[in-house]
């Protein structure tokens, strides 16, 4: 009589005491998704932690790659990224220079296709058709196919070894709530990565969330670390003067 399969699953004891422990196993050549729209919603401590771990040859999958020398800009400065899959370079001078001298390989794709490819990976869909990019460089070399008279291209699922996610609150099972537009790509990335690591402003007890208000269920999260202090830099701080002494946004 053989014993039943009782090896431990991945949904036990997710809370890690340090960033380094949360990043265990993220090694050279890893494919890493990093949440955030620009600097908004970056997992700041995890981004620093990867740098401190001394890994290299990473494939970075992120909408942007840092700006104003903040966020993922440090990864580019430290030359630990071999390839970038992103949608927007913007004024990231490090990336522009590395693209120009071919020291880094950059694949720029439409933002909707970017997130849909990750969502597909997480949802068990190996490929899907989309009209976005038809007639552009994005469509070059891709299968074209008409549906109902509209030309589409075939796009494939995009997965990763790790996803580094910034949460507003997390519970010990890994249920996440985000804050405002800091949510962006993180939920899709969490579903598409083999190991999803969450850096949260606050670790709350199990049961703290109303079941209807969990933004990302813990099934998509594997490690959790609480980091109370964040810089949350303003990328473009825009305000307007108050009409008078009182009033509010």
């Amino acid at each position, binding site marked *: *009589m053989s014993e*039943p399969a*009782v090896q431990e*699953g991945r949904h*036990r*004891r997710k809370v890690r005491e340090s960033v380094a422990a949360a990043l265990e196993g993220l090694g050279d050549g890893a494919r890493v998704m990093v949440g955030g729209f620009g600097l908004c919603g970056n997992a700041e401590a995890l981004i620093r932690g990867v740098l401190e771990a001394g890994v290299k040859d990473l494939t970075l999958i992120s909408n942007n790659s840092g700006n104003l020398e903040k966020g993922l800009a440090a990864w580019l400065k430290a030359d630990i990224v071999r390839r970038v899959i992103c949608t927007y370079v913007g004024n990231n001078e490090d990336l522009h220079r590395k693209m120009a001298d071919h020291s880094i390989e950059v694949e720029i794709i439409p933002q909707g296709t970017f997130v849909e490819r990750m969502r597909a990976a997480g*949802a068990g869909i190996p490929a899907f058709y989309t009209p976005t990019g038809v007639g552009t460089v994005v469509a070059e070399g891709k299968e074209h196919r008409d549906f109902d008279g509209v030309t589409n291209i075939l796009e494939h699922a995009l997965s990763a070894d790790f996803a580094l996610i910034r949460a507003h609150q997390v519970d010990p099972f890994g249920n996440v709530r985000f804050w405002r537009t800091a949510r962006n790509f993180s939920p899709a990335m969490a579903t598409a990565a083999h190991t999803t690591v969450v850096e949260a402003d606050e670790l709350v007890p199990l049961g703290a969330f109303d079941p209807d208000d*969990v933004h990302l269920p813990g*099934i998509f999260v594997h490690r959790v670390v609480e980091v109370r202090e964040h810089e949350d830099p303003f990328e473009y701080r825009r305000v307007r003067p108050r009409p008078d002494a009182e009033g509010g946004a």
Partner: protein
Amino acid sequence: MAFSKQQIAARAAREIAPGSIVNLGIGLPTLVADHIPEGNDVWLQSENGILGMGPFPYEGDEDPRLINAGKQTVTIVPGGSTFDSATSFSMIRGGHVDLAILGAMQVAQNGDLANWAIPGGKTLGIGGAMDLAAGARRILVLTSHVTKDGEAKLVKECSFPLTAARVVQRIITDLAVIDVTPEGFRLVELAPGVELDQVRAGMDAELLS
């Protein structure tokens, strides 16, 4: 002697790794919930939109808008969440559910599963069965060893419409625990007081032991 339904359920519960996500099919698999040890970080997923499904509610607490995939009133444990069906099937189809425990009408020696329709019979529907069978990381089948009429359910080849091809990894019946291997069915253990010949007699396929 053989396993009772509750004993099948208890034996199935031993297949559940601590810290895993499990979906329990309708019928016999539902009974497994009562046998999962507390504090084991096992989270039950219900495809109609619950992760962290709890037991039936106490009398008076039942909510018609909080049900399981069998449409029975249930509860949610602390840390549980609700979501829409697209998210729920992303979990299932995306390989995020570690184990699905399903019922079966027939299982073939290559792992083919038939559990949704009998030719000429009343079709109840597919529901989430095909998604679970194709998407969950591991498929465990709980079933009576033979039908009410004594027909074998573990067979060389399914004669009933398939739910999914080559997906079943282990089967627990009232007579035995049996694995699907590249060589075919292989005995894992006998139910107490059951003889190997009895297990083989109720099958329409070879059983390696």
